């Protein structure tokens, strides 16, 4: 037996690293989350690419158009859906309460989640680009398009991660979070220009879609994957990158405010 020693607490950075590792293992070892979040968008890309291989004008295939949408949907799944379901689960099974009773710095929990979202997002984007390029000859972005690609992905992912954390507080458990968030995500995908060309969506649905981040993520990514000539087919007649940044930025702020206001470490009651 050693006498009580006054050792100092581990540094915040080292606990961040621990939580990052924990979150990666939690995600990649769970078959449901890997299939649902990672494999599903890839399967959709394979199926849509094989079935809807028509020309949308200007020698551009629908698969090229769909690439932007499915990347946006993949980001949505890795961030909003993933966070809402996993945090609701951890709140209802007592994991969050357990952690808040330890000297773990609270920030470490969120850093771990961000590491998870980042890893899953990068992985899904790389797989989608590889499958699109190799199986369907999708033309990859070039030059400054990559910069647009990175900031749209980063900003969209941040907004959706914060929204996912906020939404998790509305659900009783992981199952109810999934039941709540999956249909919403699906509807948003249909009206935001993921599965169809956005210009074919009725105007009133376009208006609704424009209130949410997914439409702006898909639009920003279309500017990356499509030739500039197709900007004329957009509702505004241009890619509106300034507005993309503005709307996604506002959603980041709203999401953060909702998180701060609603996040709980315990179930109600």
């Amino acid at each position, binding site marked *: 037996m050693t006498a*009580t020693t006054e*050792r100092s607490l581990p540094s915040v950075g080292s606990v961040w690293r621990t*939580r990052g*590792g924990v979150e990666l293992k939690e995600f990649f070892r769970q078959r449901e989350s890997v299939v649902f979040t990672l494999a599903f968008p890839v399967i959709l890309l394979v199926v849509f690419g094989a079935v809807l291989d028509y020309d949308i004008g200007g020698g551009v295939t629908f698969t090229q158009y769909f690439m932007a949408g499915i990347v946006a949907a993949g980001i949505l799944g890795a961030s909003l859906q993933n966070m809402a379901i996993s945090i609701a689960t951890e709140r209802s099974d*007592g*994991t969050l309460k357990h952690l808040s*009773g*330890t*000297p773990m710095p609270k920030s470490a929990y969120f850093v771990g989640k961000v590491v998870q979202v980042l890893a899953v997002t990068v992985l899904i984007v790389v797989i989608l680009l590889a499958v699109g390029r190799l199986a369907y000859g999708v033309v990859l972005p070039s030059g400054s398009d990559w910069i647009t690609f990175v900031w749209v992905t980063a900003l969209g992912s941040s907004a959706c991660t914060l929204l996912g954390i906020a939404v998790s507080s509305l659900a009783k458990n992981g199952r109810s979070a999934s039941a709540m968030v999956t249909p919403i995500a699906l509807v948003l995908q249909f009206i935001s220009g993921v599965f169809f060309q956005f210009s074919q969506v009725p105007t009133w649905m376009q208006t609704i879609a424009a209130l949410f981040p997914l439409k702006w993520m898909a639009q920003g990514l279309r500017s990356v994957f499509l030739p500039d000539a197709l900007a004329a087919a957009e509702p505004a007649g241009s890619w509106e990158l300034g507005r993309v940044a503005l709307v996604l930025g506002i959603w980041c702020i709203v999401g953060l405010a909702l998180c701060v206001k609603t996040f709980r470490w315990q179930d109600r009651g």
Partner: protein
Amino acid sequence: MTRTPAATATAPGAVHPATPLDPDAAISVRGLVKRYGDSTAVAGLDLDIRRGEIFALLGPNGAGKTTTVEVLEGYRQRDGGDVRVLGVDPATGGRRWKADIGIVLQSGGGDSQLTCLELLRAQASYYADPRDPAEVLELVGLTEKAGARGRTLSGGQRRRLDVALGIVGRPRLLFLDEPTTGFDPEARRQFWSLIRSLRDLGTTMLLTTHYLDEAEELADRVGVIARGRLVEVAVPAELGGRGQAPAVVSWTEDGVRRTAETVGPTAFVRELATRFPGEVPDLAVARPTLEDVYLRMIGEPA
């Protein structure tokens, strides 16, 4: 059946509310009040738990037991009174304070894709001076499950993992919330010996349980909570005047089961023995069980 009068005065054995907080106690509580809306869950509770003791908190569901413990653990804010846990107000306890306490909840922590050893290593990394995760697994008897994912464990194994997570940070004070619920008798025996070995290492423990035999087996002192107040604090053998209560002697005579209540069972049995040539048939001497006095205290018909 007599009922304990409502505790208007200080409960037997309990701390007098006028006594100042005890800075040396592991836990010191004065006048704790917690309300949920219109209902008062804890209505002025006073309690001192000494360093190094195992204290069992008993009480029916809804008596304020869980609320009290959650205030002590820092999970809930109180509405009134003074609380010190290891000398610190839990409402303001930071990381260093949390590093000195361990909490074993009824659920949580173990439901994971990580293996037992990985979970313990992660947990240990939050603390200044953790125990060796492998040694802790050994202590709770999960060594052969070190590589098994938390999610795949049986109920009893999961509870032992919860205890392992609670003690890996080398806490000076351990909260155990109904730790053996769902255990089979064998697993419960093993768990008890684990708790005793932790006491030998100097850990103070606050245990809540529904099992009175568990409280009797483990606790140095028990406190009974009812209607938001501490009704009594005593060593298990003395609770509710058990030590002085009349014993019930029973035997069989002329083929009939006979019983007698007596404050002097030894003299009674000696006298009884003279009436039989050899053994007194089916002789038994019983004191009221902890359960008997407990049920009387919380006001339920025994």
